[in-house]
């Protein structure tokens, strides 16, 4: 009952004039960044964080969460109409969305995507409301060792479940952590890694510089390379008859909605996973379980609904560990978490007791954003199709202007803009060689928090690492740490296990 009251208060907070205005604006921007190939929720949130300094944290998080949410809806528009996923989270939407559009049923695909997103979003937000308070209550008992163990587990998840090249994944995690150590040592106060005596390094490297570099500049370079060819937009007729036809096609997608919503939410909670693998997994499982699995890939509404349900559900799921444990569940929530630190908040379970307006304002806004995005998405389809016709040669320099100003604004130092360019170019090169970049962004955000938790724990234990592994004194920390170790060695054991059984 208390949760329900808090939720209502949260909804009332999001209906305040400024918050509601930003929520609708955020949904629109999210739909836009999601729809544009090359831009996704993570790029939108990274580039827009600097402009949220003007409003209070609650309004800022409502705005950015709406952008995140809207981008999950918007990704489907270009997947269906252009055959290019608007964001990586909408890759699976292309599989059946594009064939539907080619068959002349683009409206069915777009409606299926919007309704799927709405259902996934609603189910996940209800699950979020139910799970968040008890999880935060448990997390309130966490001290430094448990916090550090959780962070190690977040890094280990990338290694165990990320699916990328293991040395390259670990390298990405470590480089993010090294970058986070630049500046003054928090215990001894000594300067660390000040290259060439440049004073700009003394204040450390702001996570935004890396995030905007990689997801702004780097992503644009990547997209410029990918989209140099012409794209073919499908024809679309929007009228009530088509919309009615599209809704009647959704009757057979009940199973896809269930799989997408529940699987998406739980995959979204995992730090290494996020919305992209969630949507791909949902598509795969729905296809396997479907009676007409052979038709998947030729334009089935269920093939659009499953990934779209999942990516929205996962985006909400990834906010659960961010709010309750202070551990982001996706690259976008890593940036949101960094944003909270910039706004002067301490991410983690204390937010529920110290900043209830912030937490419940965000949760309440998710319900409202879900509704508004559905309405805006369907109502503005013709407008988004016009936006998709903007040549990338015009959009790209505008994004670069936003990146340069966004990189400069937080610290007002050109040094950071240079670093951002360097990270953008470096991130682009590394991504081309299959180095995953998301772990680096997660580590630069979590690095200072992990170092602080580790050093506090070691002070508590008089320097003994045993504090993280001792079941008798720290059972939660030890359990999490052993899970992390299993995740770390899993990729090494897997092939050995298969080899052994092959020989046997």
């Amino acid at each position: 009952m208390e949760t329900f009251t808090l939720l209502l208060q949260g909804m009332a907070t999001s209906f305040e004039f400024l918050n509601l205005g930003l929520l609708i604006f955020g949904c629109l921007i999210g739909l836009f960044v999601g729809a544009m190939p090359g831009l996704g929720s993570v790029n939108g949130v990274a580039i827009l964080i600097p402009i949220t300094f003007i409003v209070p944290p609650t309004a800022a998080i409502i705005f950015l969460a709406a952008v995140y949410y809207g981008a999950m809806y918007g990704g489907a528009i270009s997947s269906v109409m252009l055959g290019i996923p608007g964001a990586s989270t909408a890759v699976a939407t292309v599989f059946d969305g594009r064939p539907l559009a080619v068959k002349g049923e683009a409206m069915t695909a777009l409606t299926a995507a919007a309704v799927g997103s709405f259902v996934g979003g609603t189910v996940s937000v209800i699950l979020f409301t139910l799970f968040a308070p008890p999880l935060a209550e448990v997390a309130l008992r966490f001290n430094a060792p448990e916090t550090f163990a959780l962070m190690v587990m977040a890094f280990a998840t990338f290694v165990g479940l990320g699916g990328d090249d293991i040395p390259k994944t670990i390298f990405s995690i470590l480089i993010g952590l090294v970058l986070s150590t630049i500046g003054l040592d928090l215990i001894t106060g000594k300067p660390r890694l000040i290259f060439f005596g440049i004073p700009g390094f003394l204040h450390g490297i702001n996570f935004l510089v890396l995030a905007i570099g990689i997801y702004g500049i780097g992503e644009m370079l990547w997209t410029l390379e990918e989209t140099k060819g012409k794209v073919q937009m499908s024809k679309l007729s929007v009228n009530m008859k088509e919309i009615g036809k599209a809704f009647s096609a959704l009757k057979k997608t009940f199973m896809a909605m269930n799989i997408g919503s529940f699987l998406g939410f739980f995959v979204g909670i995992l730090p290494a996973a996020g919305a992209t693998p969630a949507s791909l997994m949902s598509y795969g499982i729905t296809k396997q379980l479907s009676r007409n699995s052979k038709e998947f890939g030729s334009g089935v509404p269920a093939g659009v609904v499953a990934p779209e349900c999942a990516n929205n559900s996962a985006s909400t799921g990834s906010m659960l560990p961010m709010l309750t444990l202070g551990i982001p569940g996706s690259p976008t929530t890593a940036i949101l978490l960094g944003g909270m630190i910039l706004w002067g908040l301490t991410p983690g379970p204390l937010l529920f007791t110290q900043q209830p307006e912030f937490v419940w304002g965000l949760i309440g806004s998710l319900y409202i954003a879900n509704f508004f995005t559905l309405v805006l998405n369907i109502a503005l389809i013709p407008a988004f199709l016009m936006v998709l016709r903007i040549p990338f040669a015009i959009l790209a320099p505008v994004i670069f202007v936003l990146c340069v100003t966004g990189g400069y604004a937080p610290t007002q130092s050109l040094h950071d803009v240079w670093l951002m360019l360097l990270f953008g170019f470096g991130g682009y090169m590394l991504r081309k060689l299959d180095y995953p970049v998301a772990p680096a962004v997660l580590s630069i955000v979590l690095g200072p928090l992990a170092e602080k938790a580790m050093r506090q724990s070691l002070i508590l234990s008089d320097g003994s690492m045993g504090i993280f592994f001792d079941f008798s004194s720290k059972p939660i920390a030890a359990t999490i740490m052993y899970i992390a170790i299993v995740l770390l060695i899993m990729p090494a054991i897997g092939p050995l296990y298969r080899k052994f059984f092959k020989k046997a």
Partner: protein
Amino acid sequence: MSIVTKFTVRRAEITVAVILALCSVALMWKSAQNRITWSAEENMGAGFIPFYLSLGMFICTVITIIKFFLKRSLQSTNNEPFIDPEAFKFVSVTIISLVVLVFAIGYLGIYFSLIFFLAFYLKYFSEKSNSFILIFSLTTPILTFLFFEWLLKIPLPQGISEPLFYPVYDVMYGSSSLFMIWIYIIATVLSPSVLVLLANRFIK
């Protein structure tokens, strides 16, 4: 065969791995300028954490290099060009123009640098008319100025062009009424379009 097509994914993989290994060594060396030891009696040295993290990076790159020579990674056997020659033009011109932009920001200031950057970029890559390019290149910095300096109160670098903005600040922070400020803003935002369209009409 141009340099671009000769630089294959295979070559890029080993080149980048070696560069990253060297960077890791440099980071270890730099970290070692602080104390990198730690024991239960004495506090952790300031260089301890970055040193061992950099050592981990070095080990990862060495494994990547070994996998390359054993041909165990996808990239080690890929002899396709690292970047398509046509795409290389897009990427390289973008990177160079961004570097020039940031250099220019330090000297000319952001607003004037943006005008040149946008004009160059649109002229080079888009097929838009000169009028469109001019209006777009002039209006974007004006909107950037209004957003950052007026709305967010965050000053962006102005370099040698700073004195030109003093009269603007006088209007923004002077005794003008809010109504007049809005009139100035609308006039400023629209002025590039009006000027360019008038110029098009009368100068042939």
